[in-house]
């Protein structure tokens, strides 16, 4: 017996209806992705010299992208795992859309580290000679474990819906139907299967929650573990984590709005979801402000010489423009929008969330670059500077395009709203009715 969900048809409707628009979109994204691939090949042949990186700014936008994409990935785990443990049943319709962001941004986060390496072909040295004293190895371990667990978590909750695709989409091409058959692992909607699945997901949610906290803290320690001014602070871990959850949740809003519009899922991805996310976002934005003040006040008040060089650069020096626009984009404008315009208004919500994500990318940039540009020893000789060069821009664009491409293709082959999780009734146990979408 299938889960009873009045929206099954609506949710399955976008699957495998590949339109001309899709082909165009996928084509464009693919071209951008390939351009990035070409830029990387060029960089591999010539050396990292073709980037804008230099001495002392040894790390540039690749590392910024790494931090940003790993942060974006926190969306899914937050919504699915943390809110699952907290028993927030309203999240059901958006779990998969959020988890898919995790799944498809992680490869580009992890990939950015490899792109940044002078010898990417020596990546396996990390296995042969890996040394746990180095924060890089902490990152590699945490991120790969996170990627692996996300795939398992995502796939587990996808199985019942794949089974639905297998049973309902009989008109699909042979290979596609075969794919559903294999991936459904013989799921037949028995009550026992659902019971076990829920149990497995609950267990994994606890594990994923611990992992998500670890991952972004460890990412920040890439910087925090050095003695460099501006980086060497215990707050950097929690600050990175909060920023990650903020940008991830904002990304969920953007994705939901797009899916709703493009796939006519207005009834399923109802306005109530946006209002709930709005409340979360207000909390996170204020939390971000708290961290921002705590960090900069501590540094500014104690005014240690080398720390002040970096702080002044951010507040009134070479990076002031980026710093203050970042503050306006992440905090100022979005908070006003959320408070006064966001309620019951998806357009405004999306606007604020786009600003947050642009701002969060800039925030990662402003944490990384100014510290490098003013190293202890070289400050007195003159300020370092950095501007990304063409290959870096192409590769950055390609990362975003690649992520969007994976997402777009996925939504045409699998239901992006979990049918079984939003069902009114599941075989074997009465599923809480409030988890189902209330069309408004």
């Amino acid at each position, binding site marked *: 017996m299938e889960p009873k969900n009045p929206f099954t048809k609506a949710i399955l409707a976008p699957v495998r209806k590949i339109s001309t628009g899709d082909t165009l979109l996928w084509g464009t994204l693919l071209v951008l992705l390939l351009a990035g691939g070409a830029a990387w090949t060029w960089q591999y042949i*010539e*050396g*990292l*010299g073709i980037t804008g*990186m*230099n*001495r*002392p700014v*040894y*790390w540039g936008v690749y590392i910024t992208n790494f931090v940003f994409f790993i942060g974006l990935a926190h969306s899914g785990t937050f919504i699915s795992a943390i809110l699952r443990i907290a028993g927030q049943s309203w999240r059901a319709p958006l779990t998969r859309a959020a988890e898919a962001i995790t799944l498809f941004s992680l490869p580009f986060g992890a990939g950015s*580290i490899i792109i*940044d*390496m*002078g*010898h*990417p072909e*020596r*990546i396996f*040295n*990390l296995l*042969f*000679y*890996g*040394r746990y*004293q*180095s*924060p*890089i*190895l902490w990152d*590699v371990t945490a991120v790969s474990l996170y990627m692996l667990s996300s795939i398992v978590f995502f796939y587990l909750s996808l199985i019942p819906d794949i089974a639905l695709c297998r049973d309902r989409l009989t008109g699909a091409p042979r290979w596609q139907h075969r794919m559903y058959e294999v991936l459904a692992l013989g799921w037949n909607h028995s009550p026992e299967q659902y019971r076990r699945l829920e149990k497995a997901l609950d267990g994994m949610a606890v594990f994923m929650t611990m992992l998500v906290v670890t991952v972004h803290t460890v990412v920040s320690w*890439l910087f925090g*573990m*050095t*003695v*460099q001014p501006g980086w060497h602070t215990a707050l950097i871990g929690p600050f990175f984590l909060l920023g990650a959850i903020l940008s991830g949740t904002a990304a969920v809003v953007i994705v939901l709005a797009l899916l709703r519009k493009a796939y006519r899922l207005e009834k399923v991805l109802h306005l109530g979801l946006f209002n709930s996310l709005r409340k979360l976002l207000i909390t996170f934005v204020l939390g971000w402000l708290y961290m921002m003040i705590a960090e900069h006040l501590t540094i500014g008040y104690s005014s240690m010489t080398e720390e002040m060089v970096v702080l002044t650069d951010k507040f009134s020096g070479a990076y002031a423009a980026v710093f203050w626009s970042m503050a306006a984009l992440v905090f100022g404008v979005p908070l006003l929008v959320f408070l006064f315009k966001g309620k019951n208004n998806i357009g405004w919500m999306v606007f604020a969330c786009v600003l947050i994500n642009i701002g969060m990318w800039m925030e990662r940039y402003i944490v990384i670059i100014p510290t*490098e540009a003013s*190293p*202890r*020893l*070289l400050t*007195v*000789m003159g300020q*370092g500077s950095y501007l990304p060069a063409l290959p870096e821009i192409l590769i950055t664009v390609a990362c975003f395009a690649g992520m969007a491409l994976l997402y777009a293709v996925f939504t045409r082959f699998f239901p992006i709203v979990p049918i079984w999780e939003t069902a009114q009734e599941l075989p074997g146990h009465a599923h809480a009715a409030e988890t189902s979408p209330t069309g408004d």
Partner: protein
Amino acid sequence: MPRWGMVIDLDKCFACQSCTAACRMENNTPPAGKDQAGMGRTILWNEVLPFVEGEYPNVKATLLPRPCMHCDNPACIKVCPVQATYKNEEGLVLVDYNRCIGCRMCTVACPYAVRYFNWYAPEWPEDLKAHLNPEPEVQPRPKGVVEKCTFCVQRLRQARETAEAEGRTFQATDYVPACVQTCTAHARYFGDLDDPDSLVSKLAHSPRAFRMFEELGTQPKVFYLKQG
């Protein structure tokens, strides 16, 4: 085992930069060219850094020769994910160019900015190419790896080989890096810091002696003797 260290007398140094030039010839660091130098990508294992403090007319300029500090507690080694940079039993901090993955975490972590990245494959003008040092330790490094001052580790090996060939015991005084040998003002001293009778050891205990960024706990083995 000796613990190699260096002392630089800032009273004697007049910043002629012959240390930098000698280092370049000894260790085959490539010339960067004007554009690359403008981006700060010049590879100079030894640099003479000008510290300008104050504003005109009250300016004080200090010139500080800076090789690798060969720290006893090096920030670079801690962060290397593949142990490509390591400290040998004589306290020299070295890089395995065949293992380095080029992540540049060490360059970011080193507070003394002594570590250099090969942004491109190194190139030399024909005339210079004929004069590259043939020693195996200083063969041109490939692009994409980090390199740094080794206290001329090839000279240490040579000194040991010579001593052995001549049938005598190797003495700490048999070996000096190129910058020490060439120093016009005899401002640099080199030797075994663990030998209380060595000149470097005595100078390192001089009231004039200081180490750069002592507060960071890196325990550098390069000591400076204060000016004036």
